[in-house]
C-alpha cells in the first residue's frame, strides 16, 4: 500500500482515540467540579488542561480556567488541535483521503460523526449538556472502532489502523496517570489519604475502567493496585502492557506479510520485554512519574521508528 495511505490510516486511528480520551477527560472534569473543592489546590479543571498538554494555549486564549470556556476549548475550539471537533474533523479528513482503503461502513461511521458534529456546532450551546456531548463522542468513537473490527479486511491497512490506536492509547494512559501523580497530587503526604483515593477513582472512571478494576482487584483502591492495573495488567484494555503488546503484534504481522523486519518492530519488542520484566515495586522504586516519563519518551521513539520504517516512504 502507498506509504501515504498507511500514514492516513494511522492518523485516523490516532485522532479518533484522542477524541475519545478528551471526551473522557471532560466527563471526569465535570464530575470533579460537582465535589466541593479543596483549598490550596489548583483548580481540578486546570489539571485537566495540564493533562492534555494545552494549558498554555488555553491560558493565552481565555485566561482563568472557567468551566464553560474549558468545555468550549476542549470540545469545539478549532484553534485547539486536540479538541474533539479538531480530532473528529482530522480523522474524517484523513478518511476522505483514503476513502478507497476503507469499507463503506468505516467511512460511513467517520462521516456520520463529522456531519453530526457540524449539526452540534450549529446548535446553541445552552441546549447542549456536557454529558450528552461526551457520550456522543464515545459512541461515535466506538462506532468507528466497531466498523473497523467488523468489516475491514485483515490486511496491512488494518494493522496500520491498530498501530495508531494502540500507540495513541498507550501514550494517553501514561499521560493521564502522570497527571494524577504529578498535578493532581503535588504533596507526598496526601498519598494514601481519602482525597488521594477519590482522585484515583476519578482516574479509573476517566478510563471507563472503574467496574473492571473492582472485578479484577476488589477491596480498597490503592496506588499500587491502580498502577498494576493501568500499567501491567494485560486484561485491562487501556493498560500500557496491552497497548505495547498490541503494537508488537501488529508490527509483527506487518513484518510477516511484507517479509521484512524493521527497526520499528525491534523497538516494540524491546519495549514489551521491558514491561514484562517490570513489577509494581520496581515502578514505585523508580518513581511513578519517572517511570511514566520514560515510557512516554520510549513511545515517542517508537512512533518515529514506525514513521521511518513504513510511513515516510523512505525504506529502512
Amino acid at each position, binding site marked *: 500500500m502507498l506509504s*501515504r495511505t498507511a500514514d492516513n490510516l494511522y492518523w485516523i486511528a490516532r485522532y479518533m482515540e484522542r477524541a475519545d480520551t478528551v471526551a473522557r477527560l471532560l466527563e471526569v472534569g465535570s464530575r470533579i467540579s460537582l465535589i466541593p473543592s479543596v483549598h490550596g489546590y489548583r483548580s481540578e479543571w486546570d489539571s485537566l488542561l495540564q493533562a492534555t498538554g494545552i494549558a498554555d494555549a488555553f491560558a493565552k486564549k481565555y485566561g482563568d480556567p472557567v468551566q464553560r470556556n474549558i468545555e468550549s476549548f476542549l470540545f469545539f475550539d478549532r484553534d485547539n488541535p486536540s479538541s474533539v471537533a479538531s480530532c473528529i474533523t482530522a480523522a474524517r479528513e484523513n478518511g476522505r483521503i483514503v476513502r478507497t482503503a476503507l469499507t*463503506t461502513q468505516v467511512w460511513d461511521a467517520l462521516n456520520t460523526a463529522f456531519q453530526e458534529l457540524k449539526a452540534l456546532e450549529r446548535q446553541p450551546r445552552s441546549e447542549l449538556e456536557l454529558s450528552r456531548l461526551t457520550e456522543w463522542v464515545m459512541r461515535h468513537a466506538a462506532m468507528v472502532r466497531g466498523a473497523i473490527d467488523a468489516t475491514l479486511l485483515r490486511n496491512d491497512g488494518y494493522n496500520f489502523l491498530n498501530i495508531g490506536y494502540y500507540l495513541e492509547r498507550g501514550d494517553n494512559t501514561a499521560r493521564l496517570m502522570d497527571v494524577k501523580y504529578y498535578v493532581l497530587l503535588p504533596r507526598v503526604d496526601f498519598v494514601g489519604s481519602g482525597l488521594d483515593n477519590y482522585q484515583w477513582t476519578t482516574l479509573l472512571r476517566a478510563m471507563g475502567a472503574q467496574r473492571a478494576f473492582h472485578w479484577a482487584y476488589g477491596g480498597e483502591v490503592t496506588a499500587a493496585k491502580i498502577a498494576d492495573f493501568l500499567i501491567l495488567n494485560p486484561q485491562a484494555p487501556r493498560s500500557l502492557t496491552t497497548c505495547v503488546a498490541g503494537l508488537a503484534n501488529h508490527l509483527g504481522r506487518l513484518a510477516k506479510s511484507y517479509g521484512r523486519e524493521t527497526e520499528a518492530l525491534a523497538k516494540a519488542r524491546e519495549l514489551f520485554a521491558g514491561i514484562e520484566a517490570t513489577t509494581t515495586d520496581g515502578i514505585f522504586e523508580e518513581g511513578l512519574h519517572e517511570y511514566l516519563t520514560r515510557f512516554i519518551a520510549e513511545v515517542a521513539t517508537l512512533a518515529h521508528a514506525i514513521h521511518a520504517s513504513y510511513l515516510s516512504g523512505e525504506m529502512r
Partner: protein
Amino acid sequence: MSQFNEMYQGTSVRSPYARLENWVAAMPQELRSLKQAEAEALFRRIGITFAVYGEGGDPDRLIPFDMFPRVFAAAEWARLEKGIKQRARALNAFLVDVYGRGEIIRAGRIPARLVYENEAYEKAVAGFVPPKGVYSHIVGIDIVRTGPDEFFVLEDNCRTPSGVSYMLESREIMMRMFPELFRENRIEPVDGYSEMLRRTLASVAPKKCKGDPVVVILTPGHFNSAYYEHSLLADLMGVELVEGQDLFVDGEYVWMRTTEGPRRVDVIYRRIDDAYLDPLCFRPDSMLGIPGLMDVYRSGGVSICSAPGAGVADDKAVYTYVPEMVRFYLGEEPILNNVPTWQCGKSDDLKHVLANLPELVVKEVHGSGGYGMLVGPKSSRDEVERFRAKIVEDPGNYIAQPTLALSNVPTFVEEGVAPRHVDLRPYCLVGERIELVPGGLTRVALKEGSLVVNSSQGGGVKDTWVLAE
C-alpha cells in the same frame, strides 16, 4: 424561439418517456419530498460533493440531483454513439498528426498558427507517438439537442473530463430509490464503465512494460473539487490513487512509495494539468509534479493518460475545425454537427459578433466551467456593454455562438414538474478499442429559462437512460 421538449410533443408523450408519465402522476407531493430528501442523504453519505472554485464556502456542497430521468431511445443513442466515436477517432488522429508531420496543416485545412502557437501545444512531445497512437483516452463531448434529430457538439474535452462519477452514482441512487422503474423500463446499465476504463488504460501500457501493467490515478489531492471522483474510480478499478509526492523517477522508470518499498508504475491516469506533471519540463517554479517524469515518458517507460499535449485538440478555437478533421482523417461526413461559431480573432467574424452581441453566447477560448462567458439574451444591457469592451480589447480570446434553443426535460421544481434545459456529456474511451457505455452525464439548468448547466453556476444532474431495443 421554439424549444424541443424531450418528453412532450404537444400533448402526446414521446415514446422513450411513455412509462414515466404514470410514475410522476402516481407520486404525491409528500412522497416526492421524502424521496428527494432520501436522495440527498444518500449523496451526502457516500461523500459525493463538489467544491466550487473561487466561491469559497462549503467544500462539501452537493450538486443538486434531479430525480426525473432523461431518456434516449435505442435508435437515438445508436446514432449518437456513432457520432461520438467518430469524433473521438478524428480528434486523436489530429493529435498524432500535429505532433508528427502536420499533414492537415500542410494541406491548408487548418491554420498553422492556431496549432503551433496555441498555449496548449506542448513542444516537449513533438515527434513522440504514444502507445497505440492515442493522445486522448477519455474524451468527454458536450452535446446539446435542439430537435428530434438535431444534436450539436458544444465542446470537446480531451484532457481530463470530469463528472463520470455523477453518471455512476446517479444511477446507483435511482436504482435504490425506484427499483420499479428499472423493472418497467429496459434500461441499459452503465456500471461497466470502470472495467472498460481499466481495460482501456491497460491497453496503452508502455513498450517496456512486461506482464500486467500497474495502473494508478494521479490526483492533485483531496482539496480538489473532483477528488471524490478520483477516489471512486480508483476504488472501482482496484488501483492506487496517488499524489505527486507518492511518485518518483529512478533510472528508466517511475515508482510509487509503498510500505513495502518502491513499486513500478506503468500507466498514469492523471487528473492534473500538463503544467504540473514535471517541474523539470514544464514549470521550474512548481513544487508539484514528478521531476524527470517526462524523460521516462518519452523513452517509453511509462504511459500518461491523457498524453501531455492533448489539450490542443479541445481548444475552443480549434473546435471549429473538428468537422474538417473528420473529413480529412476519416474520409467521412461528420455525424454530429458543430454549433456555428464565430472567431472574434477574424475581423469579419468580429464585426458580426459585435453587431449581434445581445443574441449571442460568447466564451473565452481557454475558459471552462461556465466562467467568463456571456449569454446575450439573458444579460442586461450593462453586462453586454462591459463584455463588448473585453472582446474589443482582446478579440482573439473569444468565440461566439448563436444562442441555441436547448431541449427541455421535465424536472422536479418547487411548484411540481416543469421543463428545464439540459445538455449531455458522454465519456468515450479510446485505447486499443473505442468504446463508450450507453449513458453519460445529463446536466440540467435548474433556474427557469437558464441555459447554463455548469454545476458551478447552479446546474444539477439527472440520471441518463438509454433504453434497450
